[in-house]
């Protein structure tokens, strides 16, 4: 009967129910979008690191992120690393921002990634046209098809200029997005060095692959001791550092989390207000229940059931709208991400928000005087 009463109380006033649901829905959608952007951003920031086949990353000291490593490591560090027990391979990678001159005039910034896919550390993925052999051909690069407009190109075989060198689009990737909004462009290691004017022994990162059974932490300590002026990070450490750099040092992540918190607060206030006013309207009924001998707990359960029902209905509507927005965002520069974990967390958050919202109503009911049943 608790659920029946809660359900009837909710649906008795459809307008108030609509306001409650809009409050929850607004909150869910806002939080889902903000956290979806956060997850989407995180995914973009860490994609290159996650896709790499490496156990450890050697970076210049203080490298803040994948895009900001500089091209400062030399073959000396590579040889020192190769001489370390437990190390199977040390694969150089060149990464740097570079100016892209569009064929039709104007320029933009790209992130040039120089890699030798044969080494098996990092290679362009999600190729929808061309392959690594095409990228190895003279002047060749790969570009992402979602950035055609920014790059001023229309497809394969279009030409442009990176820094001082002419390049030709010989392969296309699909939806490899960049958090910095500077598109990733893949090419060979040597060509990247040439385009960027870097010496032939220079690299931004060395990706370290370990011998089977080697202790990663022990190797890391040994590498740190051997290599001066460079840092040795695990994949997870480098991923976290990149996230910190782009999401927190730039304030972008804080803005997203702030937006999510705002959504939670607005939703909580709206639900609390409507729940409180509903309780106030039904105060005589709660007093009657009290006069009939119900415990306080019974009445609290009715209010919490009302809050819970609102939460479930509001969540279902909110998550449906959020999924729609997610779908629409899939081809934008910042696609939103929804994971089962986030969906479950949002449900938990909605229940929590509704339970918090019920507090004011419960306080109101706590002060109820059953004698009011005689005053009507």
């Amino acid at each position, binding site marked *: 009967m608790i659920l029946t009463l809660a359900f009837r109380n909710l649906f008795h006033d459809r307008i108030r129910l609509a306001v409650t649901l809009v409050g929850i829905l607004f909150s869910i959608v806002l939080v889902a979008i903000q956290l979806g952007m956060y997850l989407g951003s995180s995914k973009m920031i860490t994609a290159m690191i996650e896709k790499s086949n490496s156990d450890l990353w050697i970076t210049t000291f203080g490298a803040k992120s994948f895009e900001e490593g500089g091209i400062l490591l030399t073959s000396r560090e590579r040889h020192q690393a190769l001489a370390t027990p437990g190390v199977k391979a040390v694969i150089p990678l060149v990464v740097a921002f570079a100016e892209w001159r569009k064929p039709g005039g104007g320029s933009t910034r790209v992130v040039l990634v120089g890699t030798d896919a044969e080494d098996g550390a990092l290679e362009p993925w999600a190729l929808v046209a061309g392959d690594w052999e095409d990228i190895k051909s003279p002047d060749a690069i790969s570009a992402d098809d979602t950035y055609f407009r920014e790059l001023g190109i229309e497809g394969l075989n279009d030409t442009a200029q990176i820094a001082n060198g002419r390049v030709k689009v010989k392969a296309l990737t699909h939806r490899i997005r960049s958090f910095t909004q500077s598109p990733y462009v893949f090419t060979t290691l040597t060509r990247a060095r040439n385009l960027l004017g870097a010496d032939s022994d220079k690299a931004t990162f060395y990706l370290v692959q370990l011998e089977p059974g080697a202790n990663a932490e022990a190797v890391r300590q040994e590498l740190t001791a051997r290599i001066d002026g460079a840092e040795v990070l695990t994949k997870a450490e480098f991923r976290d550092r990149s996230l910190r750099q782009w999401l927190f040092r730039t304030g972008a992540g804080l803005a997203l989390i702030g937006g999510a918190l705002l959504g939670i607060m607005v939703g909580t206030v709206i639900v609390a207000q409507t729940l409180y006013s509903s309780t106030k309207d039904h105060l*005589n009924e709660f007093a009657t229940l009290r006069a009939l001998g*119900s415990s306080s707990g019974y009445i609290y359960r009715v209010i919490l059931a009302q809050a819970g029902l609102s939460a479930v209905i509001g969540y279902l509507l909110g998550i449906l709208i959020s999924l729609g927005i997610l779908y629409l965002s899939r081809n934008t520069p910042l696609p939103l991400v929804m994971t089962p974990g986030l969906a479950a967390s949002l449900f938990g958050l909605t229940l929590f928000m509704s339970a918090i919202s019920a507090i004011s109503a419960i306080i109101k009911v706590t002060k109820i005087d059953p004698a009011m*049943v*005689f005053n009507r």
Partner: protein
Amino acid sequence: MTSPVLECENVVKELGKGAGMVVALKGVDLALVQGELTLLMGPSGSGKTTLLSILGCILTPTSGTVRIGGITTNGLKPEELASLRRKHIGFIFQSYNLFPTLTALENVRIALDVIGRKGYPAAQRAEEVLREVGLGGRLQNYPANLSGGEQQRVAVARAIASSPSIVLADEPTAALDGENGHAVMALLARIAKEQNRSVLAVTHDPRTLGYADRVVRIEDGKIVGEERRPQGLDAPEITDLTKRRKAHA
């Protein structure tokens, strides 16, 4: 002599504070026994409803003692008083106090739910008492679709559903026309007699006198008179109602 199921001794109730304080009850003694319909009559402001609230453990007395089923209520916490109400008392209110969003059947079921009786047996019991009060054909009606008399009969069904030993009614006929008022009083008289409950009805409606076994008069917070009335269940209206109920069933 049957021992009282509900009694109060020297009950005093002060309402308000300071200069605005009013002494609503000034040392009231009253005992209710099973099988009797007692009317508590008196003018407005005489303390009838305050006494009913105290006897029903809704208000606590400023001084004096209330005993329900042998348990003294003095010093009990609100939750303990609620528990006493659940076990011993059924309430009928002047304005019925039905839940507008619940059907007649659900209004009775919720009183059973409160005392922990749930599921099919509770639904069966609710239906049974509604048939008893002549509403077998109105189980799924919402209060808005019931007449005043029918609503009060739902309230009576709700009060007796958990088989309490005491039924307290506050002005049960005040909002009803003559016929419905008589019907409800007849029902209360039958509940007292046939189900051996103690029924106390607060009223100032002289139409109700014919149904009472006992009439207690209260004025200015004090019991000023008490009379026993022999007719009880023999009142003609009761017979009429019983016939009507049987015909409906």
